[in-house]
């Protein structure tokens, strides 16, 4: 794989300066040609052009195999292309709507592709051609990352295109701003439409996305391309500025760097992420909710998976704590609040947000606040209700008391596994804190049983939550945990469990890998329940 040669920010900056020097002349000439004296001065002419030039969505797209052969003249003529170029100060700007399937740490709110090459060929009516090729530093996007092209493992710097799924940008002013995520910029110091000179008669754009080596995991898995199609648009200056400023999906993109970084370092800006337990796995916790009575000890009364990540600034300090949680089983007639505590030393403060997406089956995009009891202004430790009133939040669609704690079958539908509610939360700290000031993972995930008014904590967090024989009521489990069936003691579903306990871990240390299939709920893996 040849390393990318075309970022070269400095040389492009020089180019930009020289180009802007000549821009005034080009604009004036262009103005006179297009408006043909209808407006008195060039300034007023230029304003009139800017006001009437709309962005144009293109017919051609980058297809799922990662290549886009785009005929701009399917959607614009030379005059419109020239107006857009002038509006962007001599730059033709391509907007890209990223539509990727989740891979690596990709998700709806952050997804990306990398660009292997870009080439724009403009043909003129005098049979000349202008060729702008990424191999000659013609063009750039706003972000870059070090990536390995498949099947190699060595990395080089590539331009990247970042984005998100959905179109609910409350600050947007039009449909283009609603959905387009990233920009590609071609600097073109040549008039494309003229009444007394050559005019463009064709404009063919080719974009080839990088086939990253996603066997390496992130960052390659994040920047791979998969689902496509990536929609394209020719942008005017207003939409270009909006999309660049909005920077969709940028904050969570791993190892991303800016093509033109700001002069001053922002200590509240996130540049790295520290994941717990990892960027692709979850902690799984289970509870017995009859505490202090041992109950049936099936440990499926509530099963929750969760992950946290620290957003780190340039100094390696934490500026945000972000989390994601899923309900997996609710094998109880009791209702609960599932909470998460994160102790933070010092008098910290921050702004908290938490949203629950309750209904995967019928309305997966609809969210609601996790709980009215969560304060948006946090001071001191984080103590958050992530899932509130679990019985109402996650009712069994078939009307049973329990959800996902009984034998599962592929049919009929009401015996299948049901994806549980998802919650997403984030604490933006008012000032950076050291990672060592935050209590250790897996933090303090605890249950509040509404029917008994009792709290149940993990044994690791508070050893008092155990019965007289030392059995806990809250357990940290493995990420591949298969809960025992309803009313089935954990020791029956997992025959080595008792030996492990009696030997105090000296033997049967992998007890959780050996279970009797007739006594467990065959929960699918996280690719199913982590929706």
């Amino acid at each position: 794989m040849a390393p990318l040669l075309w970022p070269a920010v400095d040389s492009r900056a020089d180019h930009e300066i020289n180009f802007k020097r000549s821009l005034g002349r080009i604009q004036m000439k262009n103005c006179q040609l297009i408006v043909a004296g209808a407006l008195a001065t060039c300034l007023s002419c230029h304003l009139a052009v800017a006001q009437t030039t709309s962005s144009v969505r293109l017919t051609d797209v980058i297809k799922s195999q990662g290549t886009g052969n785009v005929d701009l003249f399917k959607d614009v003529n030379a005059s419109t292309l020239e107006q857009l170029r002038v509006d962007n100060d001599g730059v033709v700007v391509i907007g890209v709507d990223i539509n990727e399937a989740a891979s690596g740490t990709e998700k709806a709110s952050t997804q990306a592709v990398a660009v292997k090459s870009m080439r724009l060929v403009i043909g003129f009516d005098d049979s000349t051609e202008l060729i702008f090729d990424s191999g000659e530093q013609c063009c750039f996007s706003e972000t870059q990352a070090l990536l390995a092209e498949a099947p190699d493992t060595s990395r080089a710097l590539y331009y990247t295109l970042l984005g998100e799924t959905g179109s609910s940008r409350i600050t947007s002013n039009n449909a283009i701003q609603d959905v387009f995520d990233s920009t590609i910029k071609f600097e073109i110091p040549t008039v494309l439409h003229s009444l007394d000179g050559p005019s463009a008669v064709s404009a063919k754009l080719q974009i080839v996305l990088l086939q990253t080596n996603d066997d390496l995991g992130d960052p390659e898995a994040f920047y791979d391309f998969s689902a496509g199609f990536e929609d394209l648009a020719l942008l005017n200056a207003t939409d270009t500025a909006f999309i660049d400023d909005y920077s969709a999906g940028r904050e969570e993109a791993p190892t991303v760097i800016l093509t033109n970084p700001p002069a001053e370092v922002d200590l509240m800006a996130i540049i790295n992420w520290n994941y717990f337990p990892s960027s692709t796995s979850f902690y799984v916790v289970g509870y017995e909710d009859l505490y202090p009575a041992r109950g049936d000890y099936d440990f499926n009364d509530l099963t929750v998976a969760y992950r946290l990540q620290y957003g780190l600034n340039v100094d390696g300090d934490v500026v945000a704590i972000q989390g994601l949680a899923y309900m997996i089983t609710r094998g109880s007639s009791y209702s609960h609040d599932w909470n998460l505590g994160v102790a933070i030393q010092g008098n910290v403060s921050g702004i908290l947000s938490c949203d629950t997406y309750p209904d995967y089956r019928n309305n997966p995009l609809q969210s609601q606040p996790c709980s009215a009891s969560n304060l948006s202004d946090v001071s001191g430790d984080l103590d958050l209700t992530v899932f509130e009133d679990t019985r109402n939040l996650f009712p069994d669609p078939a009307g049973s008391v329990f959800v996902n704690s009984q034998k599962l079958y592929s049919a009929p539908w009401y015996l299948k596994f049901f994806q549980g509610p998802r919650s997403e939360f984030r604490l933006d700290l008012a000032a950076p804190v050291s990672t060592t000031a935050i209590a250790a993972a897996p933090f303090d995930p605890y249950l509040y049983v509404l029917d008994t008014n009792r709290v149940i904590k993990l044994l690791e967090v508070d050893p008092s939550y155990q019965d007289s024989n030392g059995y806990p009521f809250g357990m940290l489990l493995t990420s591949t945990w298969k809960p025992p069936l309803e009313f089935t003691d954990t020791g029956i579903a997992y025959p080595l469990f008792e030996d492990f306990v009696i030997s105090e871990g000296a033997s049967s240390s992998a007890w959780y890998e050996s279970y009797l299939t007739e006594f467990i709920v065959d929960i699918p893996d996280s690719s199913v329940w982590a929706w």
Partner: protein
Amino acid sequence: MKISLQKKAPQGTVSSRPVKQLLHRGAALALVLGSNAAISASIEGLVVDSSGQPLSKVAVCLADPDEAGRCLKIRSTGKSGKYSFTGLKAGNQYTVLVNGDRTAASRKFQSYSTYVWKPLQQRVDISARNTRATLDDFTGKFNFSNFQRVVNLTAADFPELASIDLEGSYVALKVFIPSKVEDEPPQTIYLGQVTSTANVQIAASVPLAEQVIEYEIFSATLSINGSIALAGS
């Protein structure tokens, strides 16, 4: 927690007395001053199992309350289950906990890693230089659900960083748990740019079954792979 204060030893005084007497007094003064100099604050306690039997070779950590996870001193309990920290300065506050050092370099101090401890930690104020604080017993209980251990990583765990120009080029660090399943990518714990060795402070939560964490340092011109052994509990 029981804290006792030792009686202060009498201070010597010098007055106009016969030389012999003064010499005698001087020797006594030296003894008194010497014994005073030897007195310093201390913390001691006992680690037992849930049946009250002493536990030996348990790592007890003395930490700064504002920086949990990084021990100032570590002491192992003897056969009697006892531990002590001496030479402590007055005016300081400490946190005492079991297996408290979570740095990778101190992973050998993670005996009884599947136990949970009650209390989890104890806070001690050293108010005077002759404070002797005797803490409540730490009682360890085997815990069959503790699948994770926490490890704090710094630049010292990635020695190759020291020889790389971090400010002059874009260097990234990836810390991960390698996959045991073919075609399954590794589990990424940390992924980001490194601008200074001083800024590397990574908290990792690693399944107890894992023996190593792996890492990759990469830029446009280099790719270095390494691993950090976690065995030793």
